[in-house]
């Protein structure tokens, strides 16, 4: 831990609805860096899908972000981009939200796992 304190840790970023962002920022994950770039995006009904997509891609490119938290209902809007991201870091974690409970069948890592457990492949 002492060693950790000396090295600046990597960030956890959030893309979510108002309550998710307010909550996680209260929890201490938020940051605005020297270039005035925040590591969070509040998505409301007026936010365009392209804006979410751009923000997600920007977070993927930032090397100071290790984990991206995204509400599952928002992840559904940019599913093609999330499915294209196959690198382990930054880890993209789909989290539930107030209006949308967690659905394991939509989770990208579990869908990838289900593809691996295809019985026809295993018998060969």
């Amino acid at each position, binding site marked *: *831990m002492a060693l*950790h*304190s000396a*090295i*600046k*840790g*990597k*960030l*956890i970023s959030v893309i979510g609805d*108002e*309550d*998710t*962002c*307010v*909550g*996680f*920022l*209260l*929890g*201490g*994950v*938020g*940051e*605005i*860096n*020297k270039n*005035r*770039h*925040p*590591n*969070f995006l*509040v998505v*409301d009904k007026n936010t365009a899908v392209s804006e979410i997509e751009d923000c997600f891609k920007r977070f993927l490119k930032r090397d100071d972000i*290790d*984990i991206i*938290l995204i509400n599952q209902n928002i992840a559904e809007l940019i599913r093609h981009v999330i499915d294209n991201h196959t690198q*382990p*870091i930054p*880890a993209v*974690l789909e*989290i*539930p*939200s*107030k209006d949308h*409970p*967690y659905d*394991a069948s939509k*989770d990208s*890592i*579990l869908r*990838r*796992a289900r593809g*691996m*457990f295809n019985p026809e*492949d*295993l018998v*060969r």
Partner: protein
Amino acid sequence: MAENLSKVCSILDKLMLETLMLIEKYIDLKINLETTMCDGEAHLAKSRYIMGQNCVSALQLPIKDSAEFPAIATVHSHDDGKFGGKSFDLEFEKNPKNENGESFDPLRWFGILVPQDLHRAQMKYKQAVTWSVECANLQMEIHQNLVKIKQLKDYKLECSTNKEE
């Protein structure tokens, strides 16, 4: 070659079982995360009831033009000892300070005298951050196992094709 094939099959079985157990843990953790977030949202709602609808909202969050401030919760990635595996350690800064060297607490965005429920919401969301990092660690393990399973399945296919020939 037949010996190789049986070895590959037994490793594949072990990996599959391990992955299934990891998936079970992962789903349990996601449910814990959901419960914690629900509790946090309930406390946020109570704070809104006390302070007013717009006093606990995205309007209080810093925007792009706000002063620079650091993250209190950060992660450190390190090799987990397995082949090519990484895992995250969560760290909460004990005495966070902003760019001017003043101590800083996200609760202050919502006022000086905030209700106890907002403090409780903060505690719940700190717990949610901890669950999220644990989920991310499990996700990394599942990801590594899936990569290994794919490689082994390809090798198994190669072995069985050679055997048929």
